[in-house]
């Protein structure tokens, strides 16, 4: 099996694969990896062009036999820092925040991304094919813009530089606004109003005939995109009282596409989220009452959101510590009452919809061929991807860690079954 995967990787070489691929006998998994129809999938030009039974391979077609294993759409991690740091801790190599700016809305992480990062195949090994690389606040509540990436090393890693603007209004973020969350929120609202003034009078701005702005030009341009709904506004917030205030403040701008992240206490305000159809991003394992904003943190939040109909996507937050596995978090949510299928959707079609990722998050005709074939139940901690495809090309799953482990298997002469 391993040899076959290796061969595929060698054949596809740099990642360009013009030939068709036929995946035989994959289980369109719906529950715990055991149910779901078994179908063949034909891939052409990076898209799924046919789904059926007994599809016929042509001479040019390369066939992969899934042997009834579960197949899912490539998973989407709605908050990661892969590509922003090789070693995250202690300022070693992290590019995800800027200090010294009172307003960092114009900051984009995109230009700092390392498309050769050794962490990229780690995402693939968790079945994650797309991610949102998120900035952290340095000295500003507006931390900057996240990037949408695809987890393939080397080529076309960055997909979108202005994925979303991130505003942090958690307990500890008060310090960026003189010490009170009240001012943090009002400053953010004022910034949007200033951006509206800027947008109304661009000509006057360009000829220097306007009352000056305290906000830099690139910040204003970012806020204009938010105002028009072209770029979502992601507000990181935990406390129920703050969620109410945030929703009130930003739904006053007609076209703003509001997304909330973190949201330890979202389950307390589901009716407000539903009323405005506001999706949320959650870390499903984050149940510690680490501060007074998070007293309502709980492991069954995903179930509560799902039952009330609030759209939610899962995010890992950090790939380095605490946990790296999005599917583990999804499994824990299922153990705490979330329907299995809802857990999968929270890593596939829901984030694709939130981020406007066309053709992603679904296995259907015309969809992009981001596909993962799993060794077992995709949410089970003992399962792993057998093969991963992004845009119709097989991804090399080998990591630097695999090579290290193999080296020391030999050095210590440990017995293996292979």
């Amino acid at each position: 099996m391993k040899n076959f995967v290796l061969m595929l990787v060698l054949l596809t070489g740099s990642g360009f694969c013009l030939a068709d691929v036929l995946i035989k006998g994959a289980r369109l998994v719906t529950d715990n990896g055991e149910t779901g129809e078994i179908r063949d999938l034909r891939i052409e030009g990076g898209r799924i062009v046919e789904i059926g039974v007994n599809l016929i391979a042509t001479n040019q077609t390369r066939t992969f036999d899934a042997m009834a294993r579960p197949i899912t759409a490539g998973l989407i991690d709605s908050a990661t820092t892969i590509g922003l740091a090789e070693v995250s801790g202690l300022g070693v190599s992290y590019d995800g925040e800027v200090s010294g700016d009172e307003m960092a809305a114009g900051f984009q992480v995109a230009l700092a991304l390392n498309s050769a990062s050794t962490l990229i195949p780690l995402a693939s090994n968790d079945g994650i094919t797309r991610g949102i690389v998120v900035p952290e606040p340095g000295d500003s509540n507006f931390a900057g813009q996240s990037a949408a990436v695809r987890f393939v090393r080397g080529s076309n890693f960055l997909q979108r530089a202005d994925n979303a603007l991130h505003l942090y209004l958690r307990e500890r973020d008060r310090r960026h606004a003189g010490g009170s969350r009240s001012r943090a929120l009002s400053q953010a609202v004022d910034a949007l109003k200033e951006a509206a003034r800027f947008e109304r009078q661009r000509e006057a701005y360009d000829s220097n005939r306007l009352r000056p702005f305290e906000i830099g030009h690139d910040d204003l341009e970012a806020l204009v995109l938010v105002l028009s709904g072209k770029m979502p506004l992601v507000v990181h917030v935990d406390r129920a009282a703050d969620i109410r205030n945030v929703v009130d403040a930003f739904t006053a701008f007609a076209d703003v596409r509001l997304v909330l992240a973190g949201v330890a206490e979202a389950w307390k305000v589901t009716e407000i989220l539903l009323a405005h159809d506001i999706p949320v991003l959650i870390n499903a394992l984050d149940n510690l009452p680490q501060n007074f904003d998070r007293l309502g943190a709980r492991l069954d939040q995903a179930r509560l959101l799902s039952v009330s109909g609030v759209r939610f996507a899962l995010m890992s937050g950090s790939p380095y510590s605490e946990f790296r596995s999005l599917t583990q978090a999804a499994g824990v949510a299922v153990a705490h009452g979330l329907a299995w299928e809802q857990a999968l959707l929270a890593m596939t079609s829901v984030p694709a919809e939130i981020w406007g990722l066309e053709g992603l998050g679904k296995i259907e005709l015309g969809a992009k061929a981001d596909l993962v074939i799993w060794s077992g139940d995709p949410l089970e901690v003992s399962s792993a991807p057998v093969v991963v495809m992004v845009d119709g090309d097989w991804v090399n799953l080998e990591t630097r860690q695999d090579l290290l482990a193999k080296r020391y298997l030999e050095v210590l002469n440990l017995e293996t079954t292979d």
Partner: protein
Amino acid sequence: MKTILLLLMVATWIGELSADYGSTYQPKTHKSFLIDNAVIDVGEGQGEFLGWVAVSGGRIQAMGTADEPKPEVEERLDANGLWLTPGIIDVHSHLGDYPSPSYRAHSDGNEATSPVTAEVWAEHSVWPQDPQFPLALAGGVTVLQILPGSANLFGGRSVVLKNVWSRTVQGMKFPGAPYGLKMACGENPKRVYGSKSQSPATRMGNFAGYRKAWIDAQEYQKKWQRYEKALSEYIAWESTKRGSDYKARPSPPKRNLQMETLVGVLEGEILVHNHCYRADEMAQIIDLSREFNYQVTAFHHAVEAYKIGDLLAANNVCAAMWADWWQFKLESYDGVKSNVPMVHAAGACAIVHSDSATGIQRLNQEAAKALAAGRRLGLSLTDSDALTWLTRNAAKALGILEQTGTLASGKMADLVLWSHPPLSVYARAQVVFIDGVKHFDREQGIGPVTDFEIGQREEIF
């Protein structure tokens, strides 16, 4: 009488000088009971069997397979085929010392004021009302070691706790568990003190610091040994008043708490738990332990333990590891997912630890991830092997394997009944017993609520 007193003094002088601070933990009494029809893994790596466990007076009274005769008990509990394991033991935790909420006012885990703070005791920082304790209990954790942080070369004494709700830390202390000494290698001490332009600022500075402290400890040990000798000579003289020379009663040296802890290690009373990431540094620490003739009980974090599994096995040192934390600092850069199973396969004592208030809630899943990575690498390992990383091996490293860590007659009845096979992501602890007392029952809504949570947070399980 005097002789007996003398013997006691010589034999227990460390304990005597350490004053009390002893455990006041008393398990509640309970009716004898029998858990029937459970899939049992006793934690010895020998696989599972369908059977029963009888518990009486807080201890495991007997065990057997389904067809073996059962003792008479007061209550029977049908497990309906659920999975029964020993309680999970976390050898590396900071609960209570770094509680939630995590404000500076409550953050008491690291006396980062001097590279040698062997004199501090983690138990003096533990806040028993930390709401993270019940969350760990809901993950099946019955015993945990609370360690000081890793800023210092010698961080201080650890304490082993039973995961029971109590008003005091004394009421949680595992009766008779040995103390541990937290030591730390590598980046943390040199960063913390180097940034203050004081030693250690380098790894070689770290080692100079360890060696100086152990030399001081040897001297302190000798000073007390000389005193003990003089005292016993005086007492012998005083009882007879024979012999020519008048003897004055010797005065004891002044106590030094820092040195008491280090001497406790040299005397084999206190177990060394050494935070250390890199393989080369662990090998150096083993040399250090030879120079001063003490035993390293366990390396903690040990992300490169897979490189020296043979060395660990030969020196009888455990490695307590994460399943997949790595790359958050440079000394963790070479972490691999198969670290734990590779250490196991090399014949060394492998442990899965958390060092995390979230990770401690699902150590079973962490073991499962490590197991799966080992199998993908081609290592032959069973589910039962993986369970020993959380139970038997952890108990061994804490010096409490005689009392708990596996299921055997006469041992503490620390038990977890799981909803699914314990290595599944879907497995949740359904019922947790500590010393035969039910402390957690998910379906019946039984579980401790800390004082902190009263009135503001009660829907946690």
